[in-house]
């Protein structure tokens, strides 16, 4: 049995079922992300783990114990919210020490632990500041420190970075991952940002409309999507309908064909290898290190990525190209 084991939980609000019989298992020390669009039920699952909502059906086990009926106070599960939820009447030090004070630790123990965790999140020197005197990134560090200092069994992070601007977001997410590795902390991270999920996670659960679409390592999810939804959500997959796949590749499939733009090869013109096909460049777009071409081939539009090594690499609109896709780069998805 995994450390955090969620069995067949569902959640109904009134007549509206927002989580449908989800199974999730997370090992000790793992960093797992729930990834999905807004409203797919990520927060609801997280709140059930934390104990703020009771599942309509199903059970949650932590370390082999059924905690489904346990109150949030007793679970020892830390949570960091998107909007920080710091106590406005307490300064940074008191905010972080709150959980220890509630546990009635001696004052000098509290001070020592708070100082240690403040160093960990790089807040030393801000002890006496009040939440309204801090930047968003600093507030979220306080929230993180406050959750960490009580040494939770599991740390839950509900879109902790989405209220921050891009640079601070990247910085803080590296830091979160770093701390998580150092403390070997079992962590569940919620986001709707696939890049965030891919860079941070050991494993990802992709959610859609209250169900888990697919779960696996970041590489698996990115390179081997199983459903059309996952392929669409994970990035710029070319998704060909059955008819288009037949038109372009002469293949008969059920569902969709998913092809990543970077796995389509552009060959020197004049090459007539087997399994290649002609196309014409219709548009291009510079994405920093990559140029994304829109190529039309046999009436099908394809996105093709090529490395942008130097200016001479750019192929102008109207150029005829020969494309090749290897068999293992074509994925049939539901």
């Amino acid at each position, binding site marked *: 049995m995994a450390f955090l084991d969620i069995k067949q939980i569902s959640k109904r609000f009134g007549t509206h079922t927002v989580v449908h019989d989800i199974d999730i298992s997370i090992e000790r020390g793992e960093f797992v992300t729930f990834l999905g669009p807004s409203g797919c039920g990520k927060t609801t699952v997280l709140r059930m783990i934390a104990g703020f909502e009771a599942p309509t059906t199903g059970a949650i086990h932590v370390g082999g114990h059924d905690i489904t009926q346990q109150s*949030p106070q007793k679970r020892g599960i830390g949570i960091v919210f998107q909007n920080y939820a710091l106590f*406005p*009447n307490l300064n940074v030090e008191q905010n972080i020490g*709150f959980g220890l004070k509630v546990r009635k630790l001696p004052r000098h123990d509290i001070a020592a632990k708070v100082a240690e965790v403040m160093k960990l999140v790089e807040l030393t020197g801000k002890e006496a500041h009040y939440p309204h005197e801090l930047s968003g990134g600093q507030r979220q560090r306080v929230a993180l420190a406050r959750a960490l200092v009580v040494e939770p069994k599991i740390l839950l992070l509900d879109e902790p970075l989405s209220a921050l601007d891009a640079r601070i977001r990247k910085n803080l997410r590296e830091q979160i991952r770093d701390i998580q590795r150092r403390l070997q902390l079992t962590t569940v991270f919620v986001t709707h940002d696939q890049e965030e999920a891919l860079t941070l996670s050991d494993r990802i659960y992709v959610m859609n409309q209250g169900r888990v679409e697919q779960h696996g390592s970041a590489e698996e999810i990115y390179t081997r999507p199983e459903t059309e939804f996952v392929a669409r959500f994970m990035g710029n997959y070319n998704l060909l309908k059955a008819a288009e796949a037949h038109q372009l590749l002469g293949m008969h499939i059920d569902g969709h064909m998913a092809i990543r733009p970077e796995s389509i090869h552009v060959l020197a013109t004049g090459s007539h290898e087997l399994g290649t096909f002609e196309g014409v460049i219709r548009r291009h777009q510079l994405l920093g290190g990559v140029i994304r071409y829109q190529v039309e081939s046999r009436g099908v539009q394809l996105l093709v990525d090529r490395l942008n090594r130097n200016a001479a690499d750019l192929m102008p609109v109207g150029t005829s190209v020969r494309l090749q896709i290897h068999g293992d780069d074509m994925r049939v998805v539901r």
Partner: protein
Amino acid sequence: MKRTTSRIGAWVAIIVGSAYFLLPLAATFLFSLKMRRDALSFDAYKVVLTDPQFQATFSYSTLMAVLTIVTGILLVVPTAYWIQLKLPRLRGLVEFITLLPLVIPAIVIVFGYLKMYNSSALLPLTAHERSTDLLLVASYVTLSLPYLYRSIDTGLRAVDVRGLTEAAQSLGAGWGEILLRVIFPNVKSAILSGAFLTFAVVIGEFTMASLLNRPAFGPYLQLIGANRAYEPSALAIIAFLVTWASMGLIQVFAHNGRAKPKTA
């Protein structure tokens, strides 16, 4: 042209309004200084302030006010908190109930009490002085409910009650600790303004105290007013000052509360 007339209109309104309030006050004040035939003096104040009955009734009412405030806060803060957190649909109903004391005359309420708790009733609260005091405090809590509930509810709305509660819960805090360490401190200025308003309401209250036959400041005011010439004016000014001091303190605390933003 139009702007000047509207500005003149506004000034006229302000002057008339101020005169309406200030002239009687000024006249009362002036009258209260005329106890000595030949000169203006604070003699009336000296008489009033050294009257043992004044001291007794004023202290009694102050004590009742403090008890009312403490009871009211202990009753209202958890209630308003719980409604906001768990029963937001009941908010309208509760608000309506807390407003009832403004609609139902105090005399009706106190007659109800006398019927319910008289010395031959099941719970004969009026049989002893101390238990009548309890009844009086209870009635004052009722009277101050509209003010106390409103200001505390407004204060709570400015705070992320649910987020803070859940953060505290996940850190291991129980309900008592959440109320004491998280909710109370964050609605402190709202509680204080409710408290001063309550004080202002209770300190001069007449109906309840008089009909429950308690030695409060309100009935004393009435007694002096009916029997003396200059002292009532002095008392009126004193009561007025006490009330306005309460209001002033509300402003001070409301302002301090605003200086520290409640969201984080």
